[in-house]
Structure formats: structure tokens, C-alpha cells
């Protein structure tokens, strides 16, 4: 079944663009997209619950695809489907032009194929190829409206992403010098028993440096707020919710969790970068007045938790990292959908010119509260549990200082989010009593569904732990 997750959207994409009669492709793309993403989510859930795929690959004898899937892959596929579906739903309202919607749906498909391929690949170079497919789609999507800010944000992302891929390929070259091919298994073997272990080590560091840039870790985060902040609403949902996570952060989890062996200096590097990202992101978020830029800095801060957990490198920490990635995807796409809804009604993102939207947009306000409480780690929402697991893993492994620092940063998170909620919705301000109306259903439903999901993950935590996180703990070697 694995190859279908790449081939079906590819075939759909080609079918949409055949020279049909006017409007047929446009009409079909939205429904087909939602149907495919729902099927993907269902397949991933099935695989997690039953421990096997719903059906065997019908193309197995025909194509020699070297895909591989494990617990982490299924979690990624589920997350990709959820976020992409929300982004597609929001795009329905955000783009008024029929043609724009069609191009958006096409590029979203490209992006989904890229992320699915990356999640299913068992080879470092194939990982790079699919990352590029997803990234190229993102460059175009950020510049979708062809305004100056979007074009600049896209170009900056393009430059940083290309530098990152150069670093990753340098890593691949060093792995080859160490005597390996490019598949995970070969690289792992080369790290353990190579004639030249120093090459494998340099290769691992170079590849990791590239992933740091792609994931937006703090010394390399310059492109991220511009890209998120300047992209159109549904694009920033997709980008912040999943694209940078499924490229940079997923790559880091794979590389440190199941490819590279334990290297003390790498663990120290990851933990340091994690802590620095958590604090730098949170402090920068406090100073922002642009809603979307603030969310972007908050993203940097949350990714810091994931990297911190990866630095700990115990089975529990790995499960916590993956769980936090899932939670982060849910609540960040919720908050970015919220930002898109507010932007669609007001036409700007400046929080100083908002205020008092509570009366006019009560449902948006409610979903924003749920999203921010989950981000700040308030029980019983999903974000609480993943932070608890990460902190617990850090404490168990003896990194007490890191655990305390990470816990303290939660207060900062709560601080900037409450300030945001006050400035946008609760406090009296420019918009008090204005004629703004609640955002339309296409904006509200994804938000409410995601809010329900983050609550469900939190309440059903024992279930989630058993089916999602237990298999992941066995990945570490």
C-alpha cells in the first residue's frame, strides 16, 4: 500500500491538468484532495491500531519501490493528512479566484507527495529529493500573490534551503567516502564499522547542519518568520503546520534516532541548540506586534523542545519528540488558521490595531484560547502530555538543569500567548464595536476540528500512548 501514497496523488495531479472542458479540473481537485487526505489518515490510523497495513501493495510485483514504513512513518503520514486537509479547507475561503484555488490545490498535492515520499523513504538521498519537491512547492506558494513581501520571503527561504541542501549533500558525500551507500542501513553500518570513522562523523554533522537550517533552529532561523509571516493564510497553515516539520525536524528525528549512533558531542550540541531555540524563540515572540510573525517565533521555540528531546536520546525522549511534533502540527495549524481568519476579516496582521474582537468573533476567540493553552502545556490538552513526556525523559536521563529550564520556558510561552489573546480578542481596542463579522464556515470548521483534535489527544492520552508512542520507542537503536 505504501507506494500508493505517492502514486495516487501523482496520478490525480496529472489527471487534473489534462485539457478537460473548462472548470472540470478545478471542480474535481478540491473534493479529490479531501478524499485522498481522508483515506491517507484512515490508512495511517489503521496501520497504527492493527500494526499492519490495510492491504498489501497491489503494485509490489510491478514496481521495485524501496519504501519502508515504521511507527514514526505512520505518525508522520497521519499528521501530514490532517494539516494538509485543514489548509485545503481554509484555501476554499481565502482564495476568491477559481484559478488560484486550482493552482493552490495542485501545489498542495505536490507538497503532500514530497512529504509522503520523505516519510516513506529509507535512503538519505531520496529523503533529499522529496524534501526538495516539498520545498519548491513552498517557494511558489509563499510568493503565490506575487506581492513584494511574499516574493522576498520566498527568495530568502529558497536561498537558505539551497544552502541547507548543499550541506546535506556534502554529508552524503562524506558518508560515501566512509564506505557507505546512501540507505539508512548502510550509513548506520558505516558509522559502526568503517575504515574511516571520522568521515562518517563529519558526514553526520554536515547533514545535521543542513537539517538545522531546514527546521529553522535558532542560529539559522532568519528565513522562517519572513516566510511564515508573508505567506497567504492557508499557505502559512501548511508551511508552519507541517512542511518545515516534515522536512527539517522529521529528518533530524530520523537521523539522530535511527541512523547515527550515540555521539556525546552531538547530544550536547542538540541539547544546547534546543534550549537556545526555546528561549530565543519565546523572547522574540514577546516582542512581536505582527500576529503571524509572533506565531512563527513561537514555532521556533516549540521546535526547540523537540530538538532538546532528541539530544536526550532515550526511547521515552524519542517518543516525546514525535508526540510533540504531532501536537505542534495540530495546535500550530489551528493558530495559523485563526490568524488567517482574522486576517481575512481585518486585512492586516498588526496586533496593535486589533483588540476587542471577542464580541464579533467569539468562535475564533474560543479556538485561539484552546490552541494557546495546548501550546503552553495546560492539562488536559495534547500539548501538556508531550511536554510532560519530554520533561520526564530529561529528568530520568539525569539532565535536571535542562528539564528545569524547559519547564520555566513554558511560563514564557503562556505569557506571550496571553498577551496575544488579550491584544487580539479580549482587551478594548480599535475593533471594539466595529462592523467586523465572524469568519465564514470554511475558516471556522478547520479551527474547531483541530481544537477538538487537540482536546481528544489530551483526553485519550492512554490510548495515544499505547498505539502511537509505544512502537516509536522501539525505533531507537
Amino acid at each position, binding site marked *: 500500500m505504501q507506494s500508493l501514497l505517492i502514486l495516487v496523488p501523482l496520478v490525480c495531479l496529472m489527471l487534473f491538468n489534462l485539457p478537460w472542458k473548462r472548470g472540470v479540473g478545478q471542480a474535481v481537485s478540491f473534493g479529490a484532495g479531501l478524499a485522498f487526505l481522508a483515506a491517507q489518515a484512515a490508512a495511517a490510523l489503521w496501520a497504527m491500531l492493527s500494526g499492519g497495513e490495510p492491504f498489501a501493495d497491489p503494485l509490489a510485483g510491478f514496481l521495485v519501490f524501496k519504501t519502508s514504513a515504521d511507527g514514526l512513518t505512520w505518525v508522520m503520514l497521519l499528521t501530514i493528512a490532517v494539516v494538509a486537509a485543514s489548509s485545503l479547507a481554509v484555501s476554499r475561503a481565502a482564495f476568491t479566484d477559481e484559478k488560484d484555488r486550482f493552482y493552490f490545490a495542485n501545489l498542495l498535492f505536490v507538497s503532500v507527495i514530497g512529504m509522503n515520499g520523505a516519510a516513506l523513504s529509507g535512503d538519505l538521498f531520496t529523503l533529499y529529493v522529496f524534501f526538495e519537491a516539498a520545498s519548491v512547492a513552498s*517557494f511558489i506558494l509563499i*510568493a503565490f500573490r506575487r506581492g513584494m513581501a511574499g516574493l522576498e520571503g520566498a*527568495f530568502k527561504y*529558497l536561498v537558505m534551503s539551497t544552502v541547507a541542501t*548543499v550541506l546535506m549533500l556534502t554529508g552524503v*558525500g562524506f558518508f*560515501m567516502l566512509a564506505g557507505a551507500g546512501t540507505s539508512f542501513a548502510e550509513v548506520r553500518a558505516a558509522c559502526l564499522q568503517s575504515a574511516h570513522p571520522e568521515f562518517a562523523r563529519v558526514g553526520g554533522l554536515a547533514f545535521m547542519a543542513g537539517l538545522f537550517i531546514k527546521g529553522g533552529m535558532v542560529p539559522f*532561523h532568519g528565513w522562517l518568520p519572513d516566510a511564515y509571516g508573508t505567506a497567504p493564510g492557508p499557505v502559512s497553515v501548511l508551511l508552519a503546520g507541517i512542511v518545515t516539520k516534515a522536512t527539517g525536524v522529521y529528518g533530524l528525528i530520523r537521523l539522530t534516532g535511527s541512523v547515527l549512533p550515540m555521539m556525546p558531542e552531538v547530544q550536547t550540541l542538540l541539547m544546547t541548540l534546543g534550549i537556545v531555540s526555546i528561549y530565543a524563540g519565546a523572547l522574540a515572540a514577546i516582542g512581536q506586534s505582527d500576529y503571524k510573525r509572533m506565531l512563527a517565533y513561537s514555532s521556533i521555540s516549540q521546535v526547540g523542545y523537540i530538538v532538546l528531546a532528541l539530544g536526550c536520546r532515550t526511547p521515552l525522549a524519542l517518543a516525546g519528540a514525535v508526540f510533540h511534533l504531532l501536537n505542534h502540527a495540530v495546535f500550530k495549524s489551528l493558530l495559523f488558521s485563526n490568524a488567517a481568519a482574522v486576517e481575512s476579516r481585518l486585512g492586516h496582521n498588526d496586533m496593535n490595531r486589533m483588540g476587542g474582537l471577542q464580541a464579533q468573533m467569539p468562535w475564533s476567540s474560543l479556538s485561539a484560547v484552546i490552541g494557546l493553552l495546548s501550546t503552553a502545556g495546560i492539562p488536559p490538552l495534547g500539548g501538556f502530555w508531550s511536554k510532560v513526556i519530554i520533561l520526564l525523559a530529561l529528568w530520568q536521563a539525569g539532565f535536571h538543569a535542562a528539564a528545569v529550564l524547559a519547564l520555566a520556558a513554558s511560563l514564557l510561552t503562556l505569557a506571550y500567548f496571553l498577551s496575544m489573546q488579550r491584544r487580539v480578542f479580549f482587551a478594548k481596542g480599535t475593533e471594539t464595536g466595529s462592523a467586523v463579522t465572524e469568519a465564514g464556515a470554511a475558516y471556522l470548521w478547520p479551527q474547531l476540528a483541530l481544537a477538538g483534535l487537540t482536546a481528544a489527544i489530551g483526553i485519550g492520552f492512554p490510548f495515544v500512548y499505547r498505539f502511537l508512542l509505544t512502537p516509536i520507542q522501539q525505533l531507537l537503536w
Partner: protein
Amino acid sequence: MNLAGIPFFDACGIAGALLLAAGLYYLLVTSNLIRAMIALELMIKGVTLFLILAGRVTGRQDLAQALVITLIIIEVVIMVVAGGLVLGVFRNTRSVGSRQIRNLKG
């Protein structure tokens, strides 16, 4: 094969590293979008040479060539998209040269 005391393969490795360094330098020095594209190209050239060299040294030319062919295709797509972005910037401001990309080094 020796070149002034340095083995040929080592010399190729150094040349690849020089290309990387030249590209990075150019990227940091310039604020012109087209020059930034040239800088990226130089870096990609460096890594291409390095991959082929790694394949030659370890006797995996087939693998190295397969990787490089894929890399070249992707490189072209990225440059086309970058060209499209530069064109868009030009249409917006009628100038590419004087426009600073702020915080590019972030």
C-alpha cells in the same frame, strides 16, 4: 597521478571545497538577487564535484552519477523558480540591484 606533489584526487577535493567557499563568500557579500543565485550555483557545483570524487575514490561511480543526475535536474528547477521570483521582484519595484534582502544571513 601527481600534480606538484599533491595527488590528483586530493587536488579535486580541495577544488570542490574552494568552490563551496567561493559561493558562500559571494552569498554573504552581495545583496543582488541574481548574484545570490550565482553564489548558490557555485556551491552546488562544488558539492557535485565532491560527490563524483567520493564515488570515484570508493569505486561507486554508478551511485555517484545517479545522485548527480538527480541533483542536476532539481538544481535546474530551483534556478527556474528563483528566476521567477527575481522577475516578480523586478516587476514590483522595477529594480533588482538596489533592493536589499534584509536579514538574509539571519
